């Protein structure tokens, strides 16, 4: 290393810092671990519990409509969860011991996956949810007049559609503010890593 760099290195090393005590830190980190574990369990059990609740709520053994409804809603949920799993922070963390180049490449893909979930898979789920809920209501509304049944089905569909539309729109706006600039930044770092 030449003299100039050595001088800079000496200055760099002379930066004086006092960092927190390890014992206190470890206690705080263990607290974070416990919270993360609870969150993981909640995520793990939400979809199966919802499916079980639907199986209990709807007469799946007597009605084909109910059975198809549960299958549709359940499949929709698992489809979104499967896609979300590909981009979840837990998976990202496992890649942290990669080189910067590999990490950035995997990050860009995962961040794009998040946008894809909101812009595409959430709409697939919306379609499956609307179809499933409407099928589930067919038997429940069997004794009502055609007019009432149509009104209930249309109202339900429109309500879900509006709810999902605004949720997806809000999420995409958030991604536009946070993820898109981050992808741009990572793309720029990837360009810096070109071996030229």
């Amino acid at each position, binding site marked *: 290393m030449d003299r100039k760099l050595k001088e*800079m290195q000496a200055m*760099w090393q002379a930066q004086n810092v006092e960092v927190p005590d390890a014992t206190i830190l470890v206690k705080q980190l263990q607290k974070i671990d416990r919270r993360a574990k609870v969150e993981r369990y909640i995520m793990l059990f939400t979809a199966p519990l919802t499916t079980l609740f639907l199986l209990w709520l709807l007469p799946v053994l007597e009605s084909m409509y109910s059975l198809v409804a549960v299958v549709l809603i359940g499949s929709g949920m698992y489809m979104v969860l499967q896609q979300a799993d590909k981009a979840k922070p837990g998976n990202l963390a496992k890649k942290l011991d*990669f080189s910067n180049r590999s*990490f950035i490449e995997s990050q860009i893909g995962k961040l794009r996956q998040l946008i894809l979930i909101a812009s595409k898979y959430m709409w697939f789920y919306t379609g499956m949810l609307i179809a499933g809920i409407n099928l589930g209501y067919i038997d429940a509304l069997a004794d009502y007049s055609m007019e009432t049944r149509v009104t209930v089905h249309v109202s339900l569909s429109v309500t879900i559609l509006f709810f999902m539309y605004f949720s997806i729109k809000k999420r995409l706006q958030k991604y536009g503010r946070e993820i898109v600039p981050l992808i741009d930044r990572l793309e720029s770092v990837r360009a810096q890593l070109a071996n030229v």
Partner: protein
Amino acid sequence: MASKKELFNLFYGESKDKLYRLCLGFTGNTADADDLFQEVLIKIWQNLESFRKESKLSTWAYRVATNTAMLFLKRRTQLYDRQTTLDTTVQQTPVAPGPEAAVQKEEQISKLYQAIATLKEIDRIIISLLFEKCSYQEIASITGLSPTNVGARINRIKNSLSKKLV
């Protein structure tokens, strides 16, 4: 086999100052460096069990730190880990009023860190690792560049920093 807590204590004892300097070099100011240091510690804690001992603990920690830095924007735009906040506020030793030389030295150090923070992200990482006495080979394995390329870049970074520090 060492427990996660023991491994963390070992790592923290060895690398805390180096990692904090790396965070400060990446961000250029103590407020952001504190936030980044906190994120890095959380990531290291969460991933300690995946440390495979194929590399030195410090090299592994640098990888985690530099990759975390890459995703670090600032608190208001953080994407992940909205978790319990770690109290890692680092107390800078205040510059004692007194000898002019000490104050001047402090200013020079601060200027150096700020100059480093204006470099491109990868250049910041390269020069910080070099100043932490990493070999070209180590820097190459952390960044994913070739050792030759690391050498060429260091020369360019040195020139750029020299101009900024005039």
